[in-house]
């Protein structure tokens, strides 16, 4: 039997990679992602501490995104994510709480750069201003006509956005983002979590 194979990204076309640039697009689909559902105002919500629309650094590189009322996406290094999820066990036995590994179901792309908001304005109708979508904001929206979860997680003061979509749309959306970013000098970074 073969050993457990490497994760296959939904982005399969070849691109000329760049390690830096004013506006970067990176495929981070292999990143571990879990979907957690609990009760609004329940013990899990209190523990995760990321109300709907916001996010929180949960330590070890894990992020908790409040993606919907009573729903969270936990992402980051596998062990850190596992730690966050494990921390929900036994909080309140009466609370209906579920968690599932969503890593394979969701593509994840990162858009980083000062022009990222202007680029995203070409594919998404959200208001990307600092007031309406500040660092740490989490939203759901149509991006190039694909339903996505979006989180802003700035990189040392530079606007940075995570875009999650159904894996099957991954290649299409990646290409759509490249098209949107061309006028801003978008570079494609090497894939990785």
């Amino acid at each position: 039997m073969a050993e457990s194979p490497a994760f296959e990204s939904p982005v399969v076309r070849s691109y000329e990679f760049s390690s830096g640039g004013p506006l970067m697009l990176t495929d981070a689909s292999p990143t571990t992602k879990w979907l957690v559902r609990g009760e609004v105002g329940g013990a899990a919500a209190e523990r995760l501490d990321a109300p709907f629309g916001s996010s929180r650094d949960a330590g070890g590189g894990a992020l908790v995104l409040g993606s919907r009322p009573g729903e969270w996406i936990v992402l980051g290094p596998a062990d850190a994510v596992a730690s966050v999820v494990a921390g929900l066990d036994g909080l309140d036995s009466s609370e209906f709480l579920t968690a599932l590994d969503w890593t394979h179901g969701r593509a994840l792309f990162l858009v980083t750069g000062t022009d990222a908001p202007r680029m995203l304005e070409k594919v998404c109708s959200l208001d990307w201003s600092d007031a309406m979508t500040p660092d740490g904001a989490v939203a759901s929206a149509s991006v190039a006509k694909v339903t996505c979860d979006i989180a802003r997680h700035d990189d040392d003061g530079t606007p940075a956005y995570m875009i999650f979509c159904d894996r099957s749309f991954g290649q299409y959306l990646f290409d759509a983002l490249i098209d949107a970013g061309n006028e801003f000098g978008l570079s494609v970074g090497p894939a990785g979590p």
Partner: protein
Amino acid sequence: MTMSRLGAQPTEVIDRTAKLRFRWNGKRFDGFEGDTIASALAAAGEHVFSRSMKYHRPRGILTADYWDPNLLVQVGDDPNVRAGHRLLEAGMDVRPQNVWPSLHRDIKAANGLFGRFLTAGFYYKTFMRPAWLWPTYERVLATFAPGGKIDLDTPHRYHDKRYMHPDVVVAGAGPAGIEAALAAAAAGARVLLVEHEHAVGGHLRYSSSDSARAALAELRAALDASDVEVLTNSTVTGRYEDNWLGIVQRNHPIAVERLIKARAKVLVAAPGLIERPYVFSGNDRPGVITSGAARRLINLWGVKPGERAVVFTANSDGDAAAADLDRVGVEIAAIIDGRDQKRVSSAEGSSRALQAVVAGGNRIEADLLVVAAGWTAPTSLLNMAGDRPVHDPAAARFFPSDPPGNVLATGGLAGDGRIDELRAHGAATGRLAAQRAAAVAHRLQALTARARPVEGNEPAWAPDERTPLGRDPHPELYRSDTHGMVDLSEDVGSKDLVAAAREGYDSVELAKRYTTATMGPSQGKLETVNTVAAIAEARGETIAQVGTTVWRPPYAPLTLGALAGRVFEPVRVSSIHPWHEANGVSTILAGQWIRPDHYGDPAAEVRNVRTNVGLIDVTPLGKLDLRGPDIPKLLNLLYTNKWSKLPVGKVRYGMMCAEDGVVLDDGVTGRLAEDHYLMTTTSSGAGSVWEWVENWLQTERPDWKVHVTPVTTAYVSINVAGPKARELVGRVTEGVDLSPEAFPYMEVRLATVAGVAGCFMWRIGFTGELSFEIHAPSGHGLHVWEALMDAGQDLGVGPFGLEGQRIMRLEKGHFIVGQDTDGLTLGPSTGLGPLIKLDKDDFAGKPELAWAADRSLPMIVAIQTDDPNVVPEEAAQIVRGNTNEILGRITSARMSPTLGRSICLGQVEPELAAGGTKVTVLLASGERISATVMDHHAHFDPAGERLRG
């Protein structure tokens, strides 16, 4: 009218060092960078640019801007280009439109001889009878259709789209608009300033006065130093609910046009005023131009518009035009002052040029008549916001009445004033806009979960304390003592409007549609007020009593390309797609999915599955992860059969019906753990079933503890089918006993496949063969597929696509929801009546299905044609004998490679549903063939021995 290029003008926008060569009407011309097509041609002495729509009268420059109705030309393969606005480019091939054989000798000008018969309603009245001649009429009339030629081979151009959320959008960058933008930005607002023309400044751009030039320089410098985002050559085309604005940007570097959808918190309408033509005999003759046109030609492009001019002026702009003409050496033959009750009666001359002007009974020889008869306030954006502007006869134009608070007007739209007064009003408007935008922003932030938290109460809605602009008196000048053209775009004269009113079309909305006045490319900007005035005159009423038409979007015509924007057509692929592409797949678009249809020979794929083993990528199969203790209750509600006792490790088929008992979807659901199930749906129903389930849970049973997560593409789904499937799967699977005893049909196991843990494997299939359906984590899906392919080479493994699967499922008699059922197919019609458990407490569709249980319904049956070589078309009708009485239809039909004959499924009336019944199938060719209803759905292996093997 002899035009020529002047010496350098202090306000000109042309670069005389940059010569551009282009073609017009087949001849070479030169212009300068900064010229419009029209200004370059005018400077070269051209004075006829087009022929009018109906009478093919020669037409020259009228307004020398975007709205000029006489300057529509063809540029290359681009029709209806506005030569008064489009900047000249080197190499342009510019041609006149809809003329034959030439611009200067147009045969269709003969229409003018019959002008008296071509009045309003001519087409409606004339070509109604005889009705059988209409196709001929239509062909002939089509040759008279105006406009340029469309080349269907023109490659699709890149049109872009962008969203924006500015605090304030200012539509119009004249002095008031610029000041509004600057003031709003200074107050902290994010401001977008949109200017229709190629540069900001409005009327200051073509004013030769020192004060105007100084003001413009000051405003431009302030703009450059501000944070205002400025779009030139762009138009706010529409205002919709909640200040949702459409903006077309025509000069973006990466796209021929960009459509901007902006949600403005406050819209400032500052479009300025549009000069209104005057109606008199010969007012459409080349050589009759507006005062604005004269000033633009002189001051922007250094073009001398004529040699000897008559100036008809009723305002200061007309006076300024006279001064400009005089300054550049145009002889002023006469100034006719409309403020002194003097009028121009007619413009006379040859078909191509003006020769004389008649006014006050005097005939004045001239090659140019400059008209300054008043203004149209382009209130379009206010109309779109619900405002109904009111007419002020003392000022001879419309003014805003009561626009909503998030729409403010300034500049000429709001009133008159000196430059400093207009600027002050603009600045006050900008400040007010910023204050109100702040209140809207506060509210939006407070309502939006992701937004930065706001502190304090929402700012109060700032009251409008602006000092209103004045209204300069202006004589009401709409029509002289003669009749002339009201709508030069549509060739509608004042006589036509009078006639229309006389015929009963005395409502302006009716008259507009009857005569088509205001419906041409100028979109009423030049024509509306004169149209209303003509109707008012015919009715003996005032303009205020007649009212106006309602200006709707777009403010200015825009291309279909701009509306379409960038084309987003999402497509979905499975993780295995690269393998399919590398192995000769022929794909089919199913919904948004690009799916393998076949790999060259579907029949061979079927034979291989029946004899060896095949793999099909069925990833699009809908998959819903269900978790929670109340899942059995949910499944009992959704499906018609029972689910309370499904053991862990078992899979069950279920049929879903809507509340009306109509089949909604079907699929299998497996119990993976005590409170964990995986539901599958049809591929096409994946999204709708998810919504259906969530709808029940969120609105009808919110107390049930079930979490539903769509995981369709979290797993790659591979069906391994064929007699050798077990052997193949066994070669790559760990931890599962695949023997029929240990892993029988309709069960599910958790397995490690090709080293990939966490795969679900079911013993089900759609082909009628021994099948293992493997759901592997998508990030390893391609690996699993390739491992199966590698492992099965000696077994004859091969891929098969949707077509092969369709054939095999038809051989097996499985119906497809949506193909073999329709929007009226009740559950029992599928032949699955035993799965409808009416003794359950409740389930979706139960009342209807209980009603249906006692009735004879159309049934899905298997059908075989008596001639085994004839495959009926899907949807071929089943009829009674030689009549056309429809008794059913063929829903699926294929040639079976396995059976070597045609096989079908169909829906038939209950009287025909019994096995052995002969039916008549009416083919599309009209031929009727005989066919036989089978005893059961399966054409092949009805006992199911192969799939249970």
